[in-house]
């Protein structure tokens, strides 16, 4: 059996000569090679048209000063100007910092809560399956809709959130605003994101916990290892690959975060919760600085691609188990 993907073998299904198979097995109909090509080609073609072609176009534009609100101007190439502008712009670095803080805090909280919940659910109490499904609901919702309805919950006067806080701390409910206060807003987006995605980490960790065979604990029990010791020597090391996978997924997703935060705070107050995706949206779709925003988008691509590489490696590692 030779290589399958050869363009010259791509004949039309109706026109192809049947039974002319080059495979080891005598098979009637289209050859395996033709089928493989015909089956993979449409997906690749679609991705080339919708992802790669636009990407290449965008790379070209990133070297221009195109501004769609002034598109009557001739296309002017400015070399690397957009890139140097972005990388020397303190504001952009500040947005990246905001994004990094959001990613770190939200993922950290999700790991702690998610792992804790997984450990508890793994004790298989009665009805654990029902309650797990309840806990999973937030992550299935539309992030935009979530961001939107949390603005109601967090309204200082008409929302219930501040009243609950007031009940426990005694702080008057209308004395603070979770989305409107510079000191609180960054924590608000972390809070809502954690509410939404802690179940995600939980679900993956639960799979990790269930992958540990019982006999290892039995052996530890025979050796009279304490519960504490069992956790550090068995449970944690054996679930680390799963935990890593969850962290990478969440980190990439939160680095790209746009929808939920855009509706919850739209980057405000001021620019305290302006994540880099929101900056990009403003540059591209409000100021219409297409050349500049293309360059920024490419910088983000490269960052995510680096992370994606690590992610796929980790993914394969977990798969090997």
């Amino acid at each position: 059996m030779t290589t399958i993907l050869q363009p010259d073998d791509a004949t039309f299904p109706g026109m192809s000569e049947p039974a002319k198979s080059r495979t080891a097995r005598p098979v009637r109909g289209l050859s395996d090679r033709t089928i493989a090509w015909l089956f993979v080609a449409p997906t690749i073609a679609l991705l080339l048209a919708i992802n790669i072609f636009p990407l290449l176009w965008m790379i070209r534009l990133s070297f221009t000063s195109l501004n769609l609100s002034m598109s009557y101007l001739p296309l002017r190439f400015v070399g690397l100007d957009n890139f140097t502008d972005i990388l020397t712009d303190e504001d952009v670095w500040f947005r990246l910092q905001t994004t990094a803080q959001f990613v770190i805090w939200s993922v950290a909280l999700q790991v702690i809560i998610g792992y804790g919940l997984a450990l508890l659910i793994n004790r298989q109490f009665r009805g654990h399956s029902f309650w797990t499904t309840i806990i999973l609901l937030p992550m299935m919702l539309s992030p935009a809709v979530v961001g939107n309805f949390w603005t109601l919950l967090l309204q200082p006067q008409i929302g219930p959130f501040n009243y609950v806080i007031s009940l426990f701390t005694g702080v008057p409910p209308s004395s603070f605003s979770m989305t409107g206060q510079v000191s609180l807003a960054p924590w608000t987006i972390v809070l809502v994101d954690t509410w939404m995605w802690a179940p995600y980490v939980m679900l993956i960790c639960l799979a990790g916990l269930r992958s540990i065979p019982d006999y290892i604990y039995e052996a530890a029990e025979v050796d009279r290892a304490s519960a504490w010791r069992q956790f550090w020597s068995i449970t944690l090391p054996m679930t680390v690959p799963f935990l890593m996978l969850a962290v990478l997924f969440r980190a990439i997703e939160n680095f790209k975060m746009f929808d939920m935060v855009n509706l919850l705070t739209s980057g405000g107050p001021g620019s305290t919760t302006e994540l880099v995706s929101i900056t990009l949206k403003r540059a591209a779709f409000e100021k219409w600085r297409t050349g500049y925003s293309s360059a920024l988008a490419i910088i983000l691509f490269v960052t995510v691609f680096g992370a994606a590489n690590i992610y796929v490696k980790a993914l394969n590692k977990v798969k090997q188990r």
Partner: protein
Amino acid sequence: MTAALTKSTAHSIVEASPRAKMVAGGLVILYAVITILPLVWIVATAFKSQSDAIAYPPKVIFEPTLEGFVNLFTVRTRQTPDFIAKLPPPETWYDKLVRQRDMVIAGPSKVVPRFVNSLIIGFGSTFLAVFLGTLAAYAFSRFRIPLANDLLFFILSTRMMPPVAVAIPIYLMYRQLNLTDTRLGMILLYTAVNVSLAVWLLKGFIDEIPREYEEAALVDGYTRLQALRKVVLPQAVTGIAATAIFCLIFSWNEYAFAVLLTSGEAQTMPPFIPFIIGEGGQDWPAVAAATTLFVVPIVLFTVLLRKHLLRGITFGAVRK
């Protein structure tokens, strides 16, 4: 010692004690109740009157009304009580409800067309993605494809891009092709995003079907395509269904592309819901009613998908 090694007692060693189970159960239920409260609040708000919804302090106990739902589906104009008194008596319960607020229904709102858009774009892109994904996944699973791993990585990597960044060139491209704010444009875009998930998930599901089944069919004189249709697909049907639901949920929930690339004709629910506006700002009961209707299918799907959820959210990396 020996007792510990027999099967029945060995199991009890690993299983948590009743007390530990109770504590764990209590904590998990507490978390579940807290986590579900925001959703309960939104569903409750959907049944509040406008004044109850923005009451200060917020009302936990209220008289339920369908005002929010009526407001969601209609456009109303405010009239003088005299004008309303002169009208013929209301024909329907919702006419009556609206008139109690000194308003008259002027026509249907845009929510139905938006909902239809969500359905058409959701099902259209799901069908295409699952169709293309099944073919590609079968090829990746059963044939030796040169650079298969690179191609698979390429397929996945298209999903790693920030949506806002992807939207910039798509916006320009669609403008040239007259695809901006069209259902076709959104279907193509969502198909491209979903196909990466479909290929990865379905490859996992097809990998699990023993090759021997097909090989037996081939020996019996089936062609590859017949074997695929009559042997592999029936075996993969659960996997295909689960994948389809995941694609549908993505398209249903998607916001960034929808808000940047559509404005009317092809607008779906997520960018529409936050802009349901009444007199003086967001009409919260109507927004909550829309959210409730929008979320119900997702809740049903979550329950249906429970077994395959883990696979779906990890691109097939973790299976149970």
